């Protein structure tokens, strides 16, 4: 697949925009591909809806907006409800497995969940939940390389927090590589299946 359309959704304060920035930076600066990130916001209050969109391509990107994401990353129930109908029928859904109860998905859609908030709390900082999710994203999709993601994280977070952020990334990454730790699909789930999406 030459072009990846990615949408990340959650609520304000979860680091949704930072996640998009990091992925875009990893792709463009460190993997030397083309990348565009756009963002949108709800009302300016903690907990309000927020999303970011990233396009990654081997070629120049002529249209910057995501129309049909082939990867959807959601960190809140509201974002899942709102964006899952947009997911490409053969796309991949990555979700916060303890905050989201899945509904029906297109039959061919792949899905994988991670309790990234709980893992972040185990690491001592709930605020790194989005970075745990980024590690999971890197392991599940290979849309960007692990090394590029690590460099982009180190380049984007405040000094003095790099190490714990990278630990959070690695926790998400190794969780994603361990099939036995995959979260069970929530109640009422469709017939989607769990697998990795390899793009390249």
């Amino acid at each position, binding site marked *: 697949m030459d072009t990846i359309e990615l949408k990340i959704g959650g609520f*304000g304060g979860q680091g949704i925009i930072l996640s998009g920035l990091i992925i875009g930076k990893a792709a463009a600066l460190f993997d030397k591909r083309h990348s565009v990130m756009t963002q*949108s*916001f709800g009302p300016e209050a903690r907990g309000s*809806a927020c999303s970011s969109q990233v396009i990654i391509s081997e070629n120049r990107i002529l249209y910057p907006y995501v129309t049909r994401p082939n990867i959807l990353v959601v960190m809140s129930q509201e974002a899942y409800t709102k964006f899952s109908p947009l997911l490409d029928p053969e796309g991949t859904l990555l979700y916060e497995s303890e905050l989201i109860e899945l509904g029906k998905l297109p039959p061919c859609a792949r899905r994988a969940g991670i309790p990234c908030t709980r893992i972040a709390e185990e690491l*001592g900082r709930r*605020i790194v939940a989005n970075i745990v999710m980024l590690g999971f994203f890197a392991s599940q999709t290979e849309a960007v390389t692990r090394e590029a993601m690590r460099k982009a994280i180190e380049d984007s*977070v*405040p000094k*003095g927090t790099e190490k*714990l952020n990278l630990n959070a990334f690695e926790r998400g990454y190794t969780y994603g590589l361990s099939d036995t730790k995959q979260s069970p699909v929530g109640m009422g789930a469709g017939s989607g299946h769990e697998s990795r999406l390899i793009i390249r």
Partner: protein
Amino acid sequence: MDELRYPLRAVLKSGRPVFLRPLQHRDEAELAFFFSEMPRECTEFLKDDVHDPEVVRGFIRQCGTDRVYAILALTEEDRVVGDGTLHMNLHGWRRHVGEVRVVVSPEFQRQGLATALIRELVNQASVLGLKKLEAQILDSQEGARIAFEQLGFREEARLRAHALDVHNRLHDLLILTHNVDDPWLSMEILIEDLDFSRDLEGY
């Protein structure tokens, strides 16, 4: 996870690269040589007599324990040119506090190496869940003070005429402290600024 992060490359102000990595048991000879080459006036205020090989052996024994986290700075030729340690109290009323100690070879001072070592120890403090860091320096150690202050350490106490140097001159002892949560506050602000910075066309 550490094996992916290390060795951590840092380029000094002189343009010279150095590599940071945790102290390992195999480093005893190199570490002992590093300390043996240090002039006495650079080590007289350290808490241990680092010119004593038995003391260095003690450092190595503590390596990998939960009382001390030690990191070395090495040249491309694997020569030790700096040593940073984070000392922890496992119990008691200081269990949330870590003490930072840094020693840098004279030829590598004022090049940002101490800052790189301290930054790595601040990072480790977050990983270990410490809340506060402490460092003790003398009023005459201007370079060390700058290095610590660049990373958010501030003078919290000053013990007047508390240290006596080899020339019988008295010095004030400064106790610098750093709140480990401060960089995380910056991360919260970063996330909030990004997530709530503008109200565009809606969600």
